[in-house]
């Protein structure tokens, strides 16, 4: 049988649903509710406004910490990639921060700065930042020297060189850091919320865990995954397409 390219993903999702349904019916336990039950819970939570509120709070944290980490990471990555001495000096720092467990930075941030919003954001940023720096630094090292020489001989300003010569070459690396960054950050945010905030997805999941409310946990998870998929589909994919249109 032949499926069109678009049909295949839909089919695979359907199969996943069927497997879930069969398992749930077979086990018939409150620990694995059927898709229908989860959908009902999802609808109830949406109507009460609980789910949109907590999802919104988490997304806001995601946007803020992601933006800060990407901006700082790109700037530092370019600097380290271009300046060998700075890179040699800070390389050890990077390795250390890359290897500190996320949980440790979260706990330390809360201990040092209190259970406040800024501490939560800081913890997420510290977890993501070294990743971005390393990716962008690798990208900067592969910059085409011929094009940089061209820019210099025609007296491009620093701004012009950055926008028109360096940035387009870094684009694949930035997109890579964005994708892996989103996946990493939202997982860390849930832990941050679980440990020290009184709203957001992580806080809610913690609550449901204490009540053994699996249907709600699944409903929230599906909502969140759907949102992340939408970000990919509506923001990242079009960005990719737009900036790669010069390729043959």
């Amino acid at each position: 049988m032949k499926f069109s390219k678009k049909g295949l993903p839909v089919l695979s999702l359907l199969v996943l649903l069927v497997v879930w349904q069969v398992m749930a019916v077979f086990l018939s336990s409150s620990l694995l509710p059927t898709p229908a039950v989860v959908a009902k819970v999802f609808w109830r939570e949406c109507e009460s406004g609980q789910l949109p509120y907590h999802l919104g709070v988490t997304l806001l944290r995601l946007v803020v910490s992601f933006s800060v980490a990407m901006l700082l990471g790109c700037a530092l990555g370019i600097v380290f990639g271009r300046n060998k001495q700075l890179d040699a000096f800070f390389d050890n720092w990077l390795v250390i921060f890359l290897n500190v467990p996320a949980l440790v930075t979260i706990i330390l941030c809360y201990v040092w700065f209190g259970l406040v919003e800024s501490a939560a954001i800081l913890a997420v940023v510290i977890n993501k930042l070294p990743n971005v720096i390393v990716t962008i630094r690798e990208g900067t090292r592969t910059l085409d020297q011929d094009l940089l020489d061209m820019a210099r001989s025609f007296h491009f300003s620093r701004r012009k060189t950055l926008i028109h010569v360096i940035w387009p070459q870094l684009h694949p690396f930035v997109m890579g850091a964005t994708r892996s960054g989103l996946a990493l950050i939202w997982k860390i945010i849930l832990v941050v919320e679980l440990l020290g905030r009184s709203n957001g997805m992580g806080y809610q999941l913690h609550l449901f865990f204490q009540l053994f409310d699996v249907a709600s946990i699944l409903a929230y998870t599906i909502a969140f995954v759907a949102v992340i998929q939408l970000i990919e589909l509506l923001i990242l994919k079009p960005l990719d397409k737009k900036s790669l249109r010069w390729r043959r």
Partner: protein
Amino acid sequence: MSDIQINIHSKNYPAIGQASHHKAIKDFKLLLRSGEFVCLVGPSGCGKTTLLNIIADLDKDYEGEILVGFEQAQPKIGYVFQNPRLLPWRTVRENLELVLGSDQALVNIDHLLEVMQLTQSQHVYPERLSLGMSRRVSIIRAFAVDPDVLLMDEPFVSLDAPTARQVRELLLRLWQDRSHTVLFVTHDLREAIALADRLIFLSAAPMRVITEVTVPVPRADRGDEKAIEVFRQQLLNDYPEIKQLL
């Protein structure tokens, strides 16, 4: 426009790894008169590109000086590299507009595109251009900044003969239109004779000037391959040391 005096006492590359210390240029002197088309002819690897990079201020690690008029200054450069070096993510026109400062007019570009027969392709991305077209774009880019001196580093290498001739003719048309000072590097003597007012013959590394010859062939006859061939034979007879260089 002023004359440009280039004096390079020495340029060395330090030893790195297996490669030993390399003397690229030694006691090199050259005067470029305003509006003159000068061809540098020398064996490959003799240091011609190094020289152009020094003049373009891409390489600051040398002993010597570059004088514009009588002052030590950085002449305004239009550089045509050996490979076209266009930004692949910008269209032909965007590539050209980028090199212009905010004070320079855009009108210029339309005219240059017209002369180089690229008006049709101005909104195309460089990856869709043939090599000959890319080369033409990079020549326009160098002219567009209205430079004190145009540096051209074998811009016709690896073009097939008819394309090379076409681009050469277009280049000459543009140059006569504008009359810039041009420093043109090649190892093809015929090409040099067809283009230059003056030929400078260079030794193998460390590079220095062996001899220089003014080309007597009138501009009108430069398209005539016979006239060029006659002068080439005469050159080879008069200066037997040139033969070893080519």
